[in-house]
């Protein structure tokens, strides 16, 4: 009979995690290239009724079926900065960091003191032939839709845009970077590169605010169910335990 409280608790624990995720989505509503996430709630394997117990139906707890990430395209906004690039379609820029290769859709690049194309955190952006080095004296930088970088009409490099057969293989690493933990190898992407633009976050604030309401109401509903269950045992103890005075 206490099962009702534990089932309710399993849902409440998950609701708190769902709130954490919605909070993270809203906090990143302005983060370049951010992809929003959602908790997939599911039913756990049913626990068969205990032998000799009074319950006759199996009990099913609520459990997490993982966090799904929505990789849909974020809105492209014009910045006018020649080294800002956005990906229109499925794909990631390849970044070389101290802890290994990383992938990102955040294309706010700049040059480091040696002229190397780097991210905001100073990690080298990878081209088809490794690091990309530009010389501002060679003239304005033009980046084609296939990622070819040219200066003064001469090709100086090509951005490497890659994708994976299954994007579920990627984990978020913070700093707008993704990490590949699987044994999938990146394959070249056919997505278009847009110069002078950035991809905004794909968080829809209205949807997230609605999620907040849903989460908070569901939490309340379960709390009252738990109080009702507690009252039930309370009443039972009082009624059944009462000494008949007559």
């Amino acid at each position, binding site marked *: 009979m206490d099962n009702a409280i534990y089932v309710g608790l399993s849902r409440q624990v998950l609701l708190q995690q769902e709130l954490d995720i919605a909070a993270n989505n809203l*906090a990143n509503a302005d983060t370049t290239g951010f992809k929003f996430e959602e908790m997939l709630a599911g039913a756990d394997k049913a626990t068969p009724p205990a032998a000799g117990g009074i319950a006759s139906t199996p009990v099913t707890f609520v459990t997490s079926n993982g966090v799904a990430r929505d990789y849909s395209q974020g809105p492209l906004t014009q910045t006018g*900065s020649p080294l800002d690039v956005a990906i229109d379609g499925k794909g990631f820029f390849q970044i070389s960091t101290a802890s290994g290769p990383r992938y990102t859709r955040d294309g706010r690049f700049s040059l*480091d003191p040696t002229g190397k194309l780097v991210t905001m955190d100073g990690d080298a952006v990878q081209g088809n032939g490794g690091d990309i080095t530009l010389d501002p004296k*060679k003239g304005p930088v033009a980046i084609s839709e296939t990622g070819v970088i040219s200066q003064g009409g001469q090709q100086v490099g090509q951005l490497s845009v890659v994708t994976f057969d299954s994007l579920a293989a990627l984990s978020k690493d913070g*700093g707008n970077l993704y990490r590949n933990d699987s044994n999938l190898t990146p394959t070249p992407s056919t997505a278009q590169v847009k110069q002078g633009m950035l991809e905004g976050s794909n968080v829809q604030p209205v949807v997230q605010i609605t999620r907040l309401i849903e989460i908070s109401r569901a939490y309340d509903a379960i709390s009252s169910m738990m109080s009702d269950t507690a009252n039930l045992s309370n009443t039972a103890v009082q009624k059944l335990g009462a000494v008949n005075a007559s």
Partner: protein
Amino acid sequence: MQALRTAATGMAAQDLNVQVISNNIANMNTVGFKRQSAVFEDLLYQTQEQPGVQSSDQGTVVPTGVQIGAGVKAGSVYRITGQGTLTNTGNALDLAINGPGYFQVQLPDGTDAYTRAGNFSLNAQGQIVTADGYLVQPTITIPQNSTNLTISQTGQVQVMAPGAATPTVVGQLQISTFLNDAGLDAQGNNLVVESAASGPATPANPGQPGYGVVMQGYTEASNVDPVSEITNLIIAQRAYEMNSKVVTTADQMLQTANNTKS
């Protein structure tokens, strides 16, 4: 509850965003000012269940995993070095750079700073100085009583000496470029100095490949676009409000939890 702290990072980030926007708006009419933009990155993730781990002996794998993010942080506040519009002033010592480059200025302590604010004047010795009286490098002295001060697009400074029929060259202005303009360290007073991120200054005559030209009689207005700043301000304010809604929701849920046992 993590949600409370996550929402706090979101509110702090939008607070910074409003500070940057208000500084842009305040400097809308500052000569040579370059607008700044705050950029954000997601914070670290707590991995509760690794994607791709085996979920059974048969080799089935968890397709998505459970990763919960901790919010947002300011990645950087970077300067957008786009050209500002040139405003005609008619003053012979107002100079604007059309294209890349910075005027080099010597600070009173002898170190160098750089500026795009070319509203220059002459000091008591006849040297070209900034509005704050700092010497423009290389130092150019305009002889007394000379007339018709002309500065060419390539930076050559010419004057007419009293009674002379042809102009005399009295100096050559130089401008400096950097590999990474956005990495220059802003000092206030329209000045920036070289930093480890900007790379060293490379001076050259204006008009060389990769360098802008000098326009006499013009100043460069700030590149702040008031309409987009106001729009950004609205977006920042709404984002701040939404993060505060998360705080309210988390608070309500904690209150519910506290009241469950009546």
